[in-house]
């Protein structure tokens, strides 16, 4: 699969990557912290929106690194980074509990994700010998986004970022595995789905928003296990966000396509 990416290496786009990075980190962390103060009804929705922001950031980071022609490696780097995300999210809340500072959990998780992401990227570039200049930065970014997405969705399911609650409601029930694979898909799918010489950053980000809101809708269903009505709001907000972003993606695709047809054969180009 060598169709991936634009010919000029690093993918430029209409939306500044630094802005997306700030949106992902600040927005993601802020939403997780805010959800702790907003109670059982509004809190989960805010946490889930934090995950959506993190996923959009991660999808942009995947787009930048994969533009160097990763091809079939797009799902692979997603898989790898999400595993870092799961490990660091759980390590972060555990460390915060050991240090008796529950409030530090999300930040600690992010820091651990950055450290593990950096080590993996250094192994990939220095030992394995992958020649991708932005590998270090992008792996760190994807791992960070993965960690925040997993953390925020877990918070949305149980309604707090307390270690015991997350271990009981997310790990023991096996939902952590579903979050892992669902966030992998949500982060790596947008670029993997849109790649090609005519890939466009804005269209890819619309796809990222749609996959993120779709995951949020599923998380809404999963959070029904903890009772209350918070889950229904997560589900409805996720569904509304998905309809808007999916519609935007389909419209953008129809506009950017060479031609959109409902029947017939392809035009005669050079055959």
């Amino acid at each position: 699969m060598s169709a991936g990416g634009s010919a000029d290496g690093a993918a430029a786009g209409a939306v500044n990557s630094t802005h997306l990075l700030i949106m992902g980190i600040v927005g993601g962390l802020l939403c997780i912290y805010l959800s702790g103060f907003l109670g059982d009804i509004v809190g989960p929705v805010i946490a889930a929106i934090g995950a959506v922001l993190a996923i959009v950031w991660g999808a942009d980071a995947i787009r930048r690194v994969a533009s160097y022609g990763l091809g079939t490696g797009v799902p692979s780097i997603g898989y790898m980074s999400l595993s870092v995300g799961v490990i660091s999210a759980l390590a972060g809340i555990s460390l915060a509990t050991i240090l008796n500072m529950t409030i530090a959990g999300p930040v600690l998780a992010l820091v651990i994700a950055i450290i593990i992401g950096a080590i993996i990227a250094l192994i990939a570039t220095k030992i394995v010998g992958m020649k991708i200049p932005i590998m270090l930065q992008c792996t760190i970014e994807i791992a960070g986004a993965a960690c925040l997405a997993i953390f925020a969705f877990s918070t949305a399911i149980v309604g707090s970022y307390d270690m015991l609650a997350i271990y009981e409601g997310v790990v023991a029930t096996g939902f952590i595995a579903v979050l892992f694979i669902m966030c992998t898909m949500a982060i790596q799918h947008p670029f993997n789905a849109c790649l090609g010489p005519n890939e466009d950053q804005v269209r890819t980000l619309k796809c990222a928003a749609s996959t993120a809101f779709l995951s949020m809708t599923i998380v809404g269903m999963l959070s029904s296990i903890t009772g209350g009505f918070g889950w229904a709001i997560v589900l409805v907000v996720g569904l509304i966000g998905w309809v808007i972003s999916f519609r935007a993606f389909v419209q953008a695709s129809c506009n950017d396509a060479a031609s959109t047809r409902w029947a017939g054969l392809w035009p005669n180009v050079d055959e």
Partner: protein
Amino acid sequence: MDPVTLGVVALMGAVATIGGAAEDLESDIGSQSNPNSQVQLAPQMGHLHRMINKAASGEPVAYGVWCGVAGAIAYILISLLGIIPGFPVIAIAIGAAVAACVHAIYTVTSHMGRIVGQSQFEQPLFMDVLTQSLGPIVGHGFITSFCIVGISYLMTIPIGWSDPLHVFPLPLLAMLWGIALGAIGSSTGDVHYGAESEYQKFEFGGGTPVAIQGDIVTKAPLGAKNSMDVVNFCAKFGGPLTGFCFGLVVFFSFWNTVVFGIYGGIVVGIIIVILLIIMNDRLEVFARNKYGPYEEE
């Protein structure tokens, strides 16, 4: 040995066979995974087409998602209403239905995204191709998710006098078996005719070397070749073979420990693996002696 558990293990193998066959056929309709995933290169090679390009990741991740989501929804419903007799079957069906919706959405985004990503080569976005293939894709996906969550559920409940076959919760098991099935569908299914159909103008058995990737056949005996032609071609051998392979994997994962106990089961498992290695070796030596190495013209 508990005969009831053995019967359930046999049932799991049979269900897994159906799920595996459906999974491979689904991936053949969607031109997913290598080697039949090179559809996206076709416009660059000058072949505009009416095929589906469902690049929703590789099959392992994709089936991890569909089966994981189905398992999680079923788990919630069972934990809420599981005491009603027979309800778990309905819960698993509801879970598989939700997963089918997710599957449909990812199919639409990946097909549209990949086709539009090739727009400079004048590849049209055929909406009728998408709508007519979506039903078969989602239908096969539903059968697969239902089968996988079904066997995962059977692993988590006590059967007869025995303890459950596995201690993991349902969503985790469903995701793991989904990934396992995706990997098997990708490795076993793809080499049986998905690519042979799309690359039928090249000599049989030649594989898809990089030089011919994207050089697919786009015309059928009547009109344009489409993804339904590929799946009809694969339904005879590719799908059933994948199902048979996955069914055996599921069956042999539990049969040895159920019949011979834990330690005896480990020994029998090692013997089975050694026998399979010998059989594979014999088969390959036979094929190489009979047909010789692949020669480029």
